[in-house]
């Protein structure tokens, strides 16, 4: 029916997200009202034995995930010259590597030096600024680009937004700013009849291509790998390779590209070593390469080597989270809405204050994780949310965040809330 020889090889494209937020310490309103407003705030400097202590968390994840996975990848890249991966690092994660675990940063630098690793562009503070403040967004992307160049000596060509949050406007923005591509979730309702396994483009884009996550195969690794109730458990490299090869056989209809977009902490942190995740990772490239039609590419290579299949119209924002695949995990409830509103309303005062500490605190508060901790959608995706939440409850997360925000507002030299006068509230107690 068709001539296999005329088809390009089926491509596997790995993108790993590397991110660690600056979590907030407990912050009391009394530090604002009774404390010295000029004293160092240390909002992000928790020293407790909890998951709020950023240094502690980072060193733990470095030991369990980053260092062993980097080592495995380094060996795999050497062993298989065809092997490729890509990373998107948040700026706040890179800062914390430099401060708390420089050996992690060095090992990422070694990976990039192989020439088989692409680094992607994102917002420095892993923020949702695109949806609230376009100038701030642009500014953070620039800052991130500078940091990536300083640390890795490369200039990213492909953009991925925080939480893979994407809509047509973002595609348009990327096109206007000369990006070769943008990553997004390959969510069936927005793809309609399309397969995620081709290269697409945003409507009317001149240059920018759209790469869509194959969420089924990605989540087989990221979420289902250790699920003993899953029919495909235990997942082996051979089994996974079989699924990719199945695509090969019918790639004119089911696609020529498998985009595996995964949180990097999947390896060793979300899926612990004893699940066999490292063995899986170590044997996967070799197993995939046994099939002569399989190959690996970075996102840029994919874009340079594949034709655009179609346009995809995505007017409403799609993300990679939860069953809804929207922003509701970050902005779904009133607390999240009021927190993000208060955050961005502070911007003029932050600018006016013209103080680099205040600016940095404000930007770190934009990291999407702070909003995620306030999510109350417990009943459905509750397990995932509880696992990633260093607070007792989303309410606790909100209280802490708002206390800090109100302190920051005071520091900006602005009378945040009208002071409540005793006289006006003197009540006749009957």
């Amino acid at each position, binding site marked *: 029916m068709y001539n296999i020889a005329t088809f390009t090889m089926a491509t596997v494209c790995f993108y790993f997200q590397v991110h660690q937020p600056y979590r907030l310490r407990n912050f009391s309103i009394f530090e604002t009202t009774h404390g010295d407003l000029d004293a160092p705030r240390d909002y992000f400097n928790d020293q407790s034995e909890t998951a709020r202590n950023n240094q502690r968390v980072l060193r733990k994840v470095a030991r369990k995930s980053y260092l062993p996975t980097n080592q495995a990848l380094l060996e795999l890249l050497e062993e298989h010259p065809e092997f490729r991966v890509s990373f998107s690092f948040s700026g706040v994660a890179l800062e914390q590597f430099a401060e708390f675990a420089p050996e992690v940063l060095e090992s990422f630098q070694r990976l990039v030096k192989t020439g088989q690793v692409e680094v992607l562009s994102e917002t420095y503070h892993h923020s949702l600024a695109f949806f609230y403040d376009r100038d701030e967004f642009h500014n953070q992307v620039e800052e991130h680009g500078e940091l990536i160049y300083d640390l890795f000596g490369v200039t990213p060509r492909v953009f991925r937004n925080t939480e893979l949050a994407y809509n047509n406007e973002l595609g348009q923005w990327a096109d206007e700013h000369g990006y070769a591509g943008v990553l997004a979730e390959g969510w069936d309702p927005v793809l309609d009849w399309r397969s995620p396994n081709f290269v697409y483009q945003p409507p009317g884009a001149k240059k920018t291509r759209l790469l869509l996550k194959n969420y089924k195969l990605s989540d087989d690794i990221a979420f289902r790998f250790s699920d003993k109730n899953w029919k495909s458990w235990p997942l082996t490299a051979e089994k996974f390779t079989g699924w990719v090869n199945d695509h090969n056989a019918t790639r004119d209809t089911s696609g020529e590209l498998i985009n595996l977009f995964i949180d990097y902490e999947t390896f060793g942190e979300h899926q612990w070593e004893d699940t066999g995740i490292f063995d899986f990772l170590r044997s996967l490239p070799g197993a995939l390469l046994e099939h002569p039609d399989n190959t690996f590419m970075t996102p840029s290579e994919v874009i340079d080597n594949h034709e655009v299949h179609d346009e995809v119209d995505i007017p409403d924002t799609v993300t990679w989270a939860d069953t809804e695949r929207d922003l509701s995990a970050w902005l779904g*409830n009133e607390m999240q809405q009021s927190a993000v509103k208060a955050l961005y309303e502070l911007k003029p005062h932050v600018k006016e204050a013209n103080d680099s500490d205040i600016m940095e605190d404000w930007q770190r508060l934009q990291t999407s994780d702070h909003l995620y901790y306030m999510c109350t959608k417990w009943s459905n995706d509750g397990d995932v949310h509880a696992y990633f939440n260093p607070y*007792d*409850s989303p*309410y*606790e997360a*909100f209280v802490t965040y*708002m206390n800090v925000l109100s302190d920051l507002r005071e520091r900006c030299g602005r009378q945040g809330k009208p002071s*409540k006068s005793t006289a006006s509230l003197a009540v006749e*107690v009957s």
Partner: protein
Amino acid sequence: MFGWEFPPHNSGGLGVACEGIARALVRAGHDLHFVLPRSYELSEKNISFMYADTKREHLKVTPIVSTLYSPYATSSSYREAVEKGYIEPGPYGNSLLAEVMRYGQQAEAIAKEVDPDVIHAHDWLSFPAAMAAQRATGAPFVAHVHATEYDRTGGNGLNQQVYDIERAGVQAADKVLAVSNFTRQTLITHYGLDPAKSGVAHNGIDSEEKKGMAPVLQDIKNRGGKIVLFLGRITIQKGPDYLMQAARQLLDVRDDTYFVIAGSGDMHDQMVEQAAALGMADRVFFPGFVRGAKIDQLYQSADLFVMPSVSEPFGITPLEALMNKTPVLISKQSGVSEVLNHALTVDFWDTEKMANQMNAVLEHPALYSELSRNGNQEVHTISWDDTATAIDAAYGSVL
């Protein structure tokens, strides 16, 4: 089933819990005989009440109603009552204990009359009765623990006789049900409970849509003032003194807040004095013991309900508050915190954090409304039928 009190003749949560449990067990198909120490005018569909003070031909009856003592009296208040001559010290040193032991003496005859498959008793007051019934009939005994002497006294001034009865009951029981993991742990640590014969049956609440009521303290609300409510016995167990300290801190940062400390108890006067000493006498109201519809009215008027208990085996009041859509802040040292996700929680001793959380609810409408809406939804999923299911499993394990 041996109990001590039953609504409306109850002085607190034990009676409410017995009612909820008894009704749910009957709904689940159990044939229930509920034994109380005293005669009351009680009519409850499908529950057969028996009274230990009722004359039976083959029973030598001693009327045992002698005092108005509630099961929540602390050991110090017994002593005080005896010292002041309010009550006669009984053979066991005070009158409540005498009642408990006399209740136990009647239980044997009642048990033989009923011939139960399972004997189920609530708290130490009815343990001697249940143990007597166990000896008389050989039926398995399920001890249901709603509170312990450790909780009531905060660990200090423990009444040894009460403790001994609790311990004997827990040891003699074929199965022990605690109202929370928190209490189960207390029993394991302090009462030598064998974890293998223990289980947890969290309390429930009757789901109901509360009618909106006219708010109280209208003056305050009209002026935009905020109301924080405490409702419970004013005793060391309930932690009112910690709330007072937190209130003082809160009033330092916002002057629009008023505290209602509803209830009675042996720390009442001390709390009134503490409020004055902290310079907030005009901010803290003590309306006394509140009953009936007034309770819902108070809940609905409040912007926040606080339960700062030092040691709370369960704690039904936060569920009642949420039934009235009032957000709750509860101590982590409570059983109810095991079943409520949509609540603020705090260690009772962490008064600064308590003040921070109170402030946040009063300051941010978004927090108030999320806690109110989600908490109200959640409380409608908590039911006595789930309690009955856990009890049923306990019965199954001893039959």
